[in-house]
């Protein structure tokens, strides 16, 4: 089963590489996409990223996908009156000429049902879709959290 999903994953990468990619998009940039390393049994992983809008108009992140996960959602963690909760956002607006950083304890990407455990060194490819139709492919890094005791 693991081998089959691995095969599908690589097949997907291969096919995707043959799609003609947009010229490097200068209007919207994506930087520092990383997935927090987690125990192999968890059903939901988390990713953080920096979204940069260099254009004169606001643009929204409307979709994120990766063949390794059944679905990906934009969430925000909120602690109010000592209660932690998460809010789902269908889209995330990046105002003109600004940068939004998704980071621990705030906005983040929820990655549901990983098809295989991820380890440091893996670099799954994500596709970010924006409200102006732009699609950007980005490789993610797997990283340990900063404050984790070793």
């Amino acid at each position, binding site marked *: 089963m693991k081998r089959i999903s691995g095969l599908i994953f690589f097949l997907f990468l291969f096919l995707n590489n043959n799609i003609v990619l947009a010229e490097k998009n200068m209007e919207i940039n994506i930087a520092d996409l990383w997935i927090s390393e987690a*125990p192999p*049994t*968890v059903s939901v992983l988390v990713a953080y990223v920096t979204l940069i809008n260099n254009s004169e108009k606001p643009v929204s992140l409307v979709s994120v996908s990766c063949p390794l996960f059944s679905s990906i959602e934009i969430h925000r963690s909120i602690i109010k009156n000592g209660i932690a909760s998460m809010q789902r956002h269908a889209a995330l607006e990046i105002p003109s000429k600004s940068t939004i950083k998704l980071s621990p304890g705030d906005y983040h990407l929820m990655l549901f049902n990983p098809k295989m455990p991820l380890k440091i060194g893996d670099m799954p490819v994500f596709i970010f879709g924006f409200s102006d139709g732009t699609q950007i492919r980005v490789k993610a890094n797997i990283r340990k959290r900063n404050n984790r*005791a070793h």
Partner: protein
Amino acid sequence: MLTKLSNSKFLIPIMAVLVISAAGLGFYISLKQSQNRLEQNTATQDLFWPNPKQINDFSSKDYDNKDFGLKQMSGKWSFVFFGYTNCPDICPITMSVMADVYQKIVDEFENIQIMFITVDPERDTANKLSSYVSYFHKDFIGIHSELENENNLIKQIGIAYFYNKEDEKYLVDHSASIFIIDPKMRLIAKLSPPHQSETIIDKFKNIKRFIDEKN
């Protein structure tokens, strides 16, 4: 007059009274100071003193499916917090902070334990809980209890949690505080988020000193 007094048979009792009162005053001042120290350091925390809640016996399972109750907690300082393994952002932050705290104080205070109690026992099976909790530190204890059980720690500590059940990806809102239970099974303090390891260590040391002086 002075010579007369020094020869008096009352000298020894008078001296004794003076020494005892001085010692008493000294003790009172040091107690007051430690209380002030504690109050200064507890701006963001609730100290359940002078009437801490006594935790009653309860029956839960740890992540190895072994019984876990009062017996496993008494005689130890327990840091207790709540979450679920499908919470990938806030819960791992707290877990990482607590791993750092534990690492830094475990040698100094041997009788401490870190307990993660799942508020989502339906999805957090023993196996899932075990791999999740031990990922952060091998000594951490994962606790699994029947939510309906009146005596479980979730109910005894009285934390809030809510399910947002729309589909199988449901989220659980829950208390993000860390609770401290002392070796006599008294709920002593609640540390409110955001959590930082250095602050937690400072607060714990103050609380422990305060309780040790009271005992």
